[in-house]
């Protein structure tokens, strides 16, 4: 990893504590570094600064200098440099640090300013917290508790505004709750590049709305719900479903594409209620696509595969099948770019034990230059690094989406990469195909070709391949297990089990380990701890790593052995393709 250049540091004094922070840092962020909370609403670290909420008002001053000598003036009483305090409070969000800047966040002036702003924000607020989805994660609640006066002096009529406007397919707006911070407007314009939101009317009657004839329908619309500091923007899907304080948070990864946006899975009693982005400044900032937020729905889908036969019986059947096709090349393994690193490692082990060929199904679509990359497999890099494959899978022909993301991503995804396998089947060489969660029909094999082989299928949902398979091992979705992916930046990222899998489905690692053990007549570990001992011993790029050591924001690994490969991704938020790459999504 190349160390970032050392930024110029500036020393500032916050509530009496000196701290050196990089030039260009604003006072809110500088204070954060010394654990001083500067309450704010409109400021968002990834959006432009407009300074409109005035919640971040604080007292600031600069060291006094002698006009003649330019030397700092020392206060004779304290012996410290004299500070010229600005008589009016200043905004922390819009003020960048400068050498010697002094900040007070607890002075009477600051307290008064905060109490004033809090009171103003609440007078026309409906205070419908008992029925508001934001309750529990609402900045207005938190900061009125922390910085408000705690009583009301307002006896007038509150303003009345639209209570439920559908801004687009996924976002519902309650204008009365809106505090007019304009975060959603700035997000749509600056990040989603879909300038559809604005205020109409003036003053306290200002009302958020879509421009005439427009909708907030882009694939990032739900990020406005995340950044709305109050309950004005709500997810139409999540609205009224569950109180957030009942929900358990589990870190996960968006598996839609090789971007690997960091996410949080919110669940209760084994049921997932929503997915939200998790901040990673090197991957997805604070954003994620809407399409990725719907992926959890598949967990509860009616077509989930569950076994009625005992796992060991299924393994025995498979072992029998393997024994009957023991000659080299009679068995082919179709690995998956959706499998975790650990699963791919075991897939490789299984293929070796079976003397089988390995291939990967490619999934290529259009990138959106933000958080959807052209490679719709989250972990093709993992398959390369673990050695499951040595070259990139061929890009398939255009086929319709197999599992729809509800039209949010328009262009079809080309699924394929199995032309060599198809030829081998046609030539009669391959008799058994082990597919790790891949629908071989969707990947380009014909029903006739499938009919000519025995299929062993590991997967979560029913499809043409599971229907045609001789043996089916129901396995777990990404939300039901632990593991890692390697994203397009060669960043190793962890995901964790949020909910238990259904009865009759087994962790892929257990299935793969048992099959490998059966094929090789030697025991094989299936727990992450033991597996990582093997992985770090055998995979050079992971030599120094263990599962426990992977930080929540991921770990960049050495990509040089793969630098020359023609990856399909074009540029996205924090990713630039190597010059050699074939960018399919220009």
């Amino acid at each position: 990893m190349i160390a970032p250049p050392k930024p110029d540091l500036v020393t500032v004094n916050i509530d009496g504590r000196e701290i050196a922070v990089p030039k260009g840092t604003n006072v809110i962020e500088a204070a954060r570094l010394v654990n001083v909370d500067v309450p704010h609403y409109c400021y968002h670290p990834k959006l432009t600064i407009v300074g409109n909420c005035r919640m971040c008002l604080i007292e600031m001053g600069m060291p006094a200098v002698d006009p003649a000598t330019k030397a700092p003036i020392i206060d004779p009483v304290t012996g410290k440099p004299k500070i010229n305090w600005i008589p009016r409070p200043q905004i922390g969000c819009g003020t960048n640090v400068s050498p010697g800047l002094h900040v007070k966040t607890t002075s009477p002036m600051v307290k008064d300013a905060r109490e004033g702003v809090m009171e103003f924000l609440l007078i026309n607020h409906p205070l419908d917290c008992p029925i508001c989805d934001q309750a529990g994660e609402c900045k207005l609640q938190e900061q009125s508790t922390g910085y408000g006066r705690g009583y009301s002096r307002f006896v007038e009529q509150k303003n009345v505004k639209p209570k439920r406007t559908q801004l687009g397919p996924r976002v519902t707006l309650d204008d009365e709750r809106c505090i007019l911070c304009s975060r959603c407007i700035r997000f749509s314009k600056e990040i989603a590049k879909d300038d559809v939101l604005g205020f109409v009317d003036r003053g306290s009657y200002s009302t958020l709305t879509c421009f005439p004839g427009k909708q907030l329908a882009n694939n990032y619309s739900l990020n406005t719900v995340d950044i709305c500091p109050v309950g004005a923007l709500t997810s139409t899907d999540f609205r009224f479903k569950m109180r957030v304080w009942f929900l358990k948070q589990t870190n996960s990864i968006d598996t839609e594409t090789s971007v690997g946006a960091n996410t949080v899975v919110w669940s209760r009693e084994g049921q997932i209620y929503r997915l939200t982005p998790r901040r990673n400044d090197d991957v997805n900032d604070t954003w994620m696509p809407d399409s990725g937020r719907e992926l959890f729905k598949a967990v509860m889908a009616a077509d989930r595969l569950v076994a009625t036969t005992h796992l060991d019986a299924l393994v025995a059947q498979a072992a029998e099948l393997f024994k009957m096709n023991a000659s080299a090349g009679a068995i082919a393994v179709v690995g998956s770019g959706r499998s975790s690193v650990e699963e791919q490692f075991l897939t490789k082990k299984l293929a070796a034990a079976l003397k089988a060929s390995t291939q990967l199904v490619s999934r290529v679509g259009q990138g959106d230059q933000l958080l959807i990359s052209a490679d719709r497999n989250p972990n093709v890099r993992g398959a390369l690094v673990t050695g499951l494959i040595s070259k990139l899978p061929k890009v398939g022909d255009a086929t319709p989406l197999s599992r729809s993301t509800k039209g949010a991503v328009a262009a079809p995804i080309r699924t394929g990469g199995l032309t060599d396998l198809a030829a081998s089947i046609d030539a009669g060489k391959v008799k058994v195909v082990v597919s790790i969660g891949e629908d071989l029909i969707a990947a380009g094999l014909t029903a006739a070709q499938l009919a000519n082989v025995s299929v062993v299928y590991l997967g979560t949902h029913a499809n043409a391949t599971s229907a045609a398979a001789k043996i089916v091992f129901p396995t777990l979705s990404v939300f039901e297990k632990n593991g890692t992916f390697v994203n397009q930046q060669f960043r190793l990222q962890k995901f964790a089990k949020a909910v238990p899998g259904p009865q009759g489905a087994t962790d892929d690692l257990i299935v793969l380990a048992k099959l490998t053990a059966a094929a090789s007549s030697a025991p094989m570990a299936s727990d992450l701890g033991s597996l990582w001992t093997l992985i770090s011993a055998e995979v050079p790029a992971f030599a120094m790593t263990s599962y426990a050591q992977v930080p929540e924001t991921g770990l960049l690994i050495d990509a040089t052995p793969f630098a020359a490969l023609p990856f399909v991704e074009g540029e996205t938020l924090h990713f630039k393709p190597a010059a050699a790459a074939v960018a399919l999504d220009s």
Partner: protein
Amino acid sequence: MAAPAQRRIIFQHIDEPGYSNDLACYVRNGGYEVLKKSVTRPPAELIDEVKKSGLRGRGGAGFPCGVKWGLVDRKSGKPIYLIVNADESEPGTFKDRYIMHQDPHQLIEGTMISCFANNVKQAYIYIRGEMPHGARILERAIAEARAAGFVGKNICGTTYSCDIFVHRGAGAYICGEETGLIESLEGKRANPRIKPPYFPAVLGLYQCPTIVNNVETLCHVKYIVEHGGDAFTKVGTPNNTGTRIFCVSGHVQRPGYYEFEAGKITMGQLLYEVCGGPLPGRTFKAVIPGGSSAKILRFGERFKGKRKVGAEMVDYDWGVEDVPMDFDSLGMIGTMGGSGGVIVMDDTVNMVEALANINAFYSHESCGQCTPCREGSLWMKKITTRMVHGQARNEDAALLKSVADQIPGRTICAFGEACSWPTQSFIAKFGDEFKQYPETKKAAKPVGAHELV
């Protein structure tokens, strides 16, 4: 002491019999001669004259024009824009409209001289949306001037070119705040920008250095360049140079426009002698000296302190009538010269009702960006409206003051001050009237009192 005579610089020809707003009339009266001479002089020399003149902006804040021009970022390599602020919306102010209607070429000449001095290639006149007639007059005048070579390509036969566009405003008071104006001119909602970093002199229109000046200010530039900065300092009083146009409205015998040397006339002379005093049978009660956002003055109150006269500090003890009408004197007594809009109220006016009127204006005009102004202005309006039309409470005065105190100094633009100063000053000076209002309401209204709608 008798009031001095008017000193008409801007209004030199305005109201003269037969004086019309077309180019021929303007040129007949010596028009565009200053521009012709100016374009042969080094631009820095013109800026120097303006600096020497001590000219202070007539848009409201009284910021020295030469200093403003000196702050312009001339090293960025970006074009420099000049914007004429003709949005005139401050209640009580109506001078810019009159200048544009009666003598548009004076403004155009002042603008072109200022553009040449600052190497501006493109100027805009941002005229209040509700002044369509003024916009048409300006359009016609610019067309005439362009045809005569005073605007556009190769001005007065030189290599210097500069065009002027008239842009009609978006129908809101806040479009007059310079950064709101710039946003509006860029085609956006007139939300004022935060300063720093968006000082117009550095990051103004289209993120380029920009000069924003009031109509009257730019007309003064023409006079200054013609007669020299030193000559201008001889008009008016030190630090308050030149003339001021007072737009007197309200309860006086002769409301209207009056141009006097700054500081050479007192409030009393202006109202009693020039404007003919109160209406028959009435007495003056209060006056707002510089547009509705300036703090109100109560007849009968006294202001004491020390002020500088020449090199010496002398005591002053003024009633409202004694205050010289200039930026500094009005500033000293806690109000401001502002835009020159003098609003006079006599004893028929109830101060709660007058404030209700002002509050209705400001709550309607807040752009709504920043919380204190947006919510505070409407809250104050709701309180005063309730007092007038519903139930008035004894504690409302204290509440009003407290709400108003939570606004100024905490907002993006000076509207925060503009909307809170009326309430603060009305309560400070007429607090009793607010406290008594629950009783006042029960009594019959005085004869001639205005009905608040």
